[in-house]
């Protein structure tokens, strides 16, 4: 009886896990199935073909978009880590006038919905002449309130004696941040790095607004426009192939660093 119960339990669990995995499996299969089989596909197509992929590569510069996404997401992640730790350090370890004020301003901006600044931010980009440049994709995201708060929290747990000792050794403040605090804050850096990278990799609304030139588009934007526009010529497999390409880099990274992904995103409590 107990054994029966446990079989039932695992069957139910497996079915629910399949609910989350099978659609992705179907998508991959559909992207390598002949176009006319997709409508009936459930498990395995009768023959495999890469024609959807070759057609997609002909139609959209997905490789260039991958590079763009990589440049944008890496620059943002780098900026967020550097600026975040600088500001987090000042807010946690240095005394200065206005410190609390700045801290509360940061907290306040976190509660501010982005919907309010969307239109004026676009206009700023227009006025700067940043439309259709990497600047528009990167600069507004270089500083992130959440990362500042997280760095601040983490640095607070690091004893002051460590910093004082470094100062006695003649380290300047930047050296303290990057030579002393960084090696001691790897969990925070990994967490902030992963969530920032993920968020900027998957961002799509902002690129849709500020980028019009195809050669500068990020991957999610290119795939979105491909999916809603007419360029897929109603070929379903081609659309799915582009979606597979978009998912692939992150899924690969996820397979290798699953634990870090889950921990990071859970600790920040954000999605995407």
């Amino acid at each position, binding site marked *: 009886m107990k054994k029966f119960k446990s079989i039932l339990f695992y069957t139910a669990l497996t079915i629910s896990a399949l609910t989350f995995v099978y659609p992705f499996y179907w998508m991959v299969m559909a992207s390598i199935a002949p*176009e*006319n089989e*997709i*409508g009936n596909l459930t498990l395995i197509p009768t023959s495999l073909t890469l024609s959807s992929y070759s057609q997609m590569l002909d139609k959209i510069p997905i490789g260039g978009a991958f590079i763009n996404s990589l440049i944008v997401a890496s620059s943002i992640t780098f900026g967020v880590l550097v600026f975040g730790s600088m500001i987090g350090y000042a807010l946690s370890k240095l005394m200065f*006038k*206005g410190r609390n004020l700045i801290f509360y301003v940061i907290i306040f901006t976190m509660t501010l919905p982005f919907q309010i600044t969307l239109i004026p931010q676009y206009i700023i980009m*227009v006025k*700067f*002449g*940043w*439309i*259709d*440049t990497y*600047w528009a994709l990167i*600069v507004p995201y270089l500083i992130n309130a959440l990362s500042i708060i997280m760095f601040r929290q983490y640095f607070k747990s690091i004893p002051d004696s460590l910093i004082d000792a470094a100062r006695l050794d003649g380290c300047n403040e930047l050296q303290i941040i990057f030579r002393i605090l960084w090696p001691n804050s790897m969990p925070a850096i990994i967490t902030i790095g992963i969530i920032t990278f993920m968020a900027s990799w998957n961002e799509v609304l902002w690129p849709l607004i500020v*980028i*019009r*030139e*195809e*050669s500068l*588009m990020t991957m999610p934007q*290119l795939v979105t*426009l491909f999916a809603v526009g007419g360029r897929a*010529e*109603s*070929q*379903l497999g081609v659309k799915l192939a582009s979606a597979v390409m978009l998912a692939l880099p992150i899924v690969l990274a996820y397979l290798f660093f699953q634990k870090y992904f889950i921990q990071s995103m859970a600790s920040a409590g954000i999605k995407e």
Partner: protein
Amino acid sequence: MKYLFNIIIVVLLSYVLISCSSNNKDSRNALLYWCSNNTDEIKFAKINTDEWNKNNPNDQVKYQPVPEGRSSEEIILAAVVGKTTPDIYSNMWQGDVEAYAQAGVLVALDTLKGFLDFLYERCDSVVIEEIKSLDGHIYQIPWKINPIMLIYNINFINDLELTSPPKIYSEFFDASKKFQKDFDGDGYIDRWFGYSEVEVTWWQRFFDFYPLYLAASGGAPLVKNNQVAFNNEYAIEVFSFLQEMYKKNYFSKEKLSARQDVFLAGVTATRFTGPWEIAHAEKFKPKGFEYEYTFMPVPDGHQGPVYTYGDPKNIVIFKTCKYPQSAWNYIKTMIDRESDLKLLEITNQLPRRKNLSSDTFFNDYFTNNPKMKIFADQSVYVKGTDASPVLKEIFDLISQQYEACVVYGEKTPEEAINDAADAVNLLFLE
């Protein structure tokens, strides 16, 4: 605090410097001509500019495809906003011209030497009236059209034992009823006589309501001098016709575009579409598939020619151009008879010129491309768009009522047209 401000100023300045350094390129010597980014049109532009540059060493023209990606309308708007417009743009949707003209970014072409003579040579008076702006000036020269017609599957029409595809609404209903089928007996229709995107996006109405309205009304305007003109029996007839098609499930209400091409897959027998479908069909059609084009259906008892929408793309000169007269001289060579033939041969798009199908100069092309001949014959009865700076919104408001009435049957056609007219009138009041 003083330091703080100094720092802010320094950082702000560096931001500004970065932003300034990023948009200083392009030599301004040659005229810049933006063509569409369609491969064939790029080829056409290259041939034309090469020829011109050879003959006019002092007036060079550089062509450049519109940056690829979004709709060309969005790209042009971004260029206007960023003041990076080209000198010449050849793919301006006629419906956008009025808004740009009113914003003062286009050159009034009728002020240029030789423009009006050339225009009267190329177009008949109806077309000229159509492209005139509300202020009486002309900001565009008609270039090319892609008329919307009814494409049909010849084998299906034969299967239905019809001698010709349906021409009037009642014939359309009959054929649809015969064609509709539930193959597997699961209670769901598996093939429909026709299909049109049910999406509410404004330009989808170019492929159903608008050409049908032009067909029914003999080419009547939607709006005229900032007043609603579409609240008439024709619009109501078109709404009733399409509503019936959806109600009886002759057209699928479900979005079919998310799967394979329904017309080529034999899931539908007809579709409203333009000449670009020819290249697509030749590329993807299954063996034995035969198709042809005919006029848009009209109400029973319709008299006179059958009009349709031509999706006109016109050429404009932006005010950023320093030498509009040279630009115009170049444009003239782009749209003369020889170039128009090249346009046909290279891109399979129709030049918008009078007597296209009767001019023997184009004979050979149409003999070799019989399907294009149908479009050339139609091109006599083609309408573009009305002059209004808010045309997109007008289409959008009609489209909203279209969805509620035609697709979901929530309103009668009379109510829907009335509501659309009221909404558009509000727009004009603003």
